[in-house]
């Protein structure tokens, strides 16, 4: 009896997880507001000919507006979480590039893979070691002060 109950509750959690995974995004009006901000900043970047894309400009402007208190973060929290949660969906179309670039399946693709594997190893190792070195240096100088 209890085992069936436990089994049932497990099935329930599984269903809940599955529903959660494919639930439509929440906060549509907030997403609309973020789209409007992006449109505005895109237009601003174009007319001012800034060497910065509209989306990055929009992010900086929104951050400044949040920090100065003009914009209440509660207005955008849910919409922003939804967009960031589903970001990978938005760049799937760009990742379909192999459809138009068959050369990626040959030697060129292998070379790119090589750059990525070797490059990522170098980048991760040096970044981590530099930050670690800086962290220990600070510990030492703090220790000397105390």
């Amino acid at each position, binding site marked *: 009896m209890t085992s069936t109950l436990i089994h049932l509750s497990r099935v329930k959690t599984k269903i809940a997880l599955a529903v959660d995974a494919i639930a439509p995004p929440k906060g549509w009006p907030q997403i609309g507001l973020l789209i409007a901000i992006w449109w505005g900043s895109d237009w601003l970047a174009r007319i001012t000919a800034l060497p910065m894309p509209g989306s990055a400009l929009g992010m900086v402007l929104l951050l400044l507006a949040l920090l100065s208190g003009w914009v209440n973060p509660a207005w955008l929290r849910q919409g922003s979480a939804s967009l960031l949660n589903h970001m990978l969906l938005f760049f799937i*179309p760009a990742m379909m590039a192999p459809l138009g670039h068959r050369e990626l399946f040959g030697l060129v693709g292998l070379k790119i893979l090589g750059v990525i594997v070797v490059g990522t190893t170098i980048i991760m190792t040096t970044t981590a070691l530099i930050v670690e070195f800086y962290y220990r240096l600070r510990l030492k100088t703090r220790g000397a002060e105390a």
Partner: protein
Amino acid sequence: MTLAALTNLPPAFWGIATLGLYGLARLIYARKRRWWSSPLLVAWLACLALAFALRVSYADYLRGTSWLLSLLGPATVAFALPIYEQRHFIRRHWPVLAVGVLAGSTVAIVSSWLLAKSFSLPPDLERSLVAHSITTPFAMTVASGIGGIPQIAAVSTAVTGLLGAVIGDGLLKYLPLRSSFARGALFGMGAHGVGVAKAYELGQEEGSIAGLVMILAGLTNVAASPLIAAALT
């Protein structure tokens, strides 16, 4: 006859198919959380397989799905929220974040460029690979700003994230890292979104650091892309 009928699929089909396969990939990931079951990999390979099976051209595929791509704009704007929420953390730890982001970005750009050169890749591909370590929307922006192909940047960035999660796991065993900052920066700088998820598995602090390093490195690279473009010519 059937092939002709298939190649004449309406553009909306590809939008719906992409959404459907993405939902399916998320379902699989909800049940099995591994790097190889990541929706990034599963949804991508499933869409590619379907597109190749139905012999759609890239232009036709994009006709039905470019609206998804344009949502990367507002998604980039949305990054302002997590930065704002972490403002106290940034104020307290800005020196170490700055060291990680600046050193990491410099190493990333220089090493990718030199590696691409030494593998003698065509110039437009070299330029697409320079920003492969930063998060995809920023990597695509940088690529188009310095004469690369944004779509190639998107592919190589995604592969970087997937492989980076595995490479980072391996490196953690050998590197003498005592601070959570170093472990977080490793994943945030080397494997962007996938790395951030991985860093959260190590701990809350590692995760926040990875997330911040990822966003700040993206912004730094976009801001520096005119400089990068000038340096490459």
